[in-house]
């Protein structure tokens, strides 16, 4: 599935002997079977519907392995595709990733350029391998201030969003370039524009300007702002995982994470693997009763 997007070294594959290939195939089948067993046991308990990732640690990974920063980001992308596959297998319906913060534009221009090129390359790969997306009926969102992206990236992102808009399966949302405070400001702007248009409509439709100006207008509510967030229509994240052990949210989904379980595992993002995801879900299951109780109390108070 998405694994096809993870680049393999063709030379390595050609050098393998037939016996080795069969052994690898048997090993992979065994791994798949064991993975399914573990998922079956995990699924006895509550499973998260929406998992969000702050993919931190690509540069540190590259530094620790003495490779280029760009390569660190590429390995990070492979880890992302693998994590998507594992989340999909576990029945997670919504996956959101913090791919690029608005603050990241402050980085070295060469690095920003490398990241933009990587994003463009991967988005175009997804556009070309449509059968892969269609297999999981994946809807892809790009949340953020897309005007800040370079034109090729923005055009590719909009094209991918449009081509997957009707899909009803896995929802994969990529936040780039994104800030929670920018998202909230954007929602306020949209709401204000909506109100202005409503008033203009009332004014145009009414022959008595006094009636239009004196018409009742309700105060903006939290629900009104919810409707205009990028995440409208998506449930709030159940788990937010920030890799590399950092404990801050760095302006990510601050509005949506009231009752999200915040986790900060030590591995760097390229090292994040299936067992870390299993551990994350086990931790979530342990606090699930508390979180659900809080959500129920909050709903009652509304």
């Amino acid at each position, binding site marked *: 599935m998405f694994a096809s997007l993870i680049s393999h070294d063709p030379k390595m594959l050609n050098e393998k002997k037939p016996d080795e290939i069969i052994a690898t195939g048997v090993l992979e089948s065994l791994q798949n079977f064991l993975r399914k067993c573990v998922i079956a046991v995990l699924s006895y308990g509550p499973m998260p519907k929406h998992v969000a990732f702050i993919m931190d640690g690509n540069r540190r990974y590259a530094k620790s392995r003495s490779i280029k920063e760009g390569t660190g980001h590429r390995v990070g992308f492979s880890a992302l595709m693998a994590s998507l596959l594992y989340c999909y297998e576990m029945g997670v319906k919504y996956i959101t990733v913090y791919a690029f913060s608005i603050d990241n534009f402050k980085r070295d221009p060469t690095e920003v350029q490398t990241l933009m090129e990587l994003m463009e390359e991967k988005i175009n790969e997804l556009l070309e391998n449509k059968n892969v997306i269609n297999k999981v009926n994946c809807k892809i969102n790009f949340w953020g201030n897309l005007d800040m992206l370079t034109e090729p990236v923005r055009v590719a992102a909009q094209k991918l969003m449009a081509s997957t808009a009707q899909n009803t399966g896995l929802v994969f949302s990529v936040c780039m370039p994104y800030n929670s405070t920018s998202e909230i400001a954007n929602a306020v702007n949209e709401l204000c524009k909506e109100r202005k248009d409503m008033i203009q409509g009332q004014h145009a439709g009414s022959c008595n300007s006094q009636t239009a100006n004196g018409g009742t207008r309700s*105060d903006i509510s939290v629900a009104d702002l919810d409707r205009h967030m990028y995440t409208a229509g998506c449930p709030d994240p159940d788990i937010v995982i920030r890799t590399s052990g950092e*404990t801050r949210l760095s302006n990510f989904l601050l509005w949506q994470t009231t009752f999200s379980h915040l986790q900060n595992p030590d591995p760097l993002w390229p090292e994040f693997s299936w067992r870390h995801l299993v551990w994350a879900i086990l931790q979530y299951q342990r606090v699930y009763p508390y979180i659900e109780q809080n959500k129920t109390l909050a709903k009652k108070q509304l």
Partner: protein
Amino acid sequence: MSLPSRIIKLTLGLLWCIIHVVISLFNLCSHLMFNLECYLISSGLLRKYRNLQLSRVKCLAIVVDSREAKNTVKINQLLCWLKTLGVKYVCLYDIDGVLKKFFEPSMNSSRDDNSGDDLDVCANIKALDSSHREMTLECISGSDGKEGIAKAANLLCSTSLNGDRYTHESVKTESVFTETDMASALKSVGCGGPEPDLLLVYGPARCHLGFPAWRLRYTEIMHMGPLKSMKYGAVVKAFYNFSKKYQNYGK
């Protein structure tokens, strides 16, 4: 449900319970080790935790589960510890406003006493005097979070719409609010306040429970466990771990 599928379900359930029991046992062991470490920190036996540098903690936030927040003895004890450690500004938060109600009477009396002094924009602030150090205390609740942002949005929109009403142009100019505008509006509606450098979560889970978004952007969030089992050593350790943090702020 057929018998084989019932057996499979029961087996899965049993395995699931066994996994969680094993995790609980590991957690118990690590909790005991942690308690021992806290004891050693409190007694001053661990050198690295002596002479804490708190200059980077200009504002500390505490998020407490609302049910646990009713334990005001523990809250006061925690505040005493923080005063002793030299924390200058503490922001207490619980989603239901239990802490606000508890501290409100004493805040109102101190506001009356200080009626001649300059009042902070946020009306939930009180200065706690101690014989050695002064600590500013702020109490906020869920109504200062999302609802505060809604109030600020209301203020911005009303100002913009009222401005439009007095123009005679039929084509309205699009006023675009920036994050700076939102920050100013939040301050105007009484939901401003400093961004905490460190946030300690007291409760069963590491959740910020709706702490105001505008003040949580780059805050380090640390989970301290339930309030009833809070330890002085754990607070010291949290400050020590914070002192080792380094932020790029996106760079």
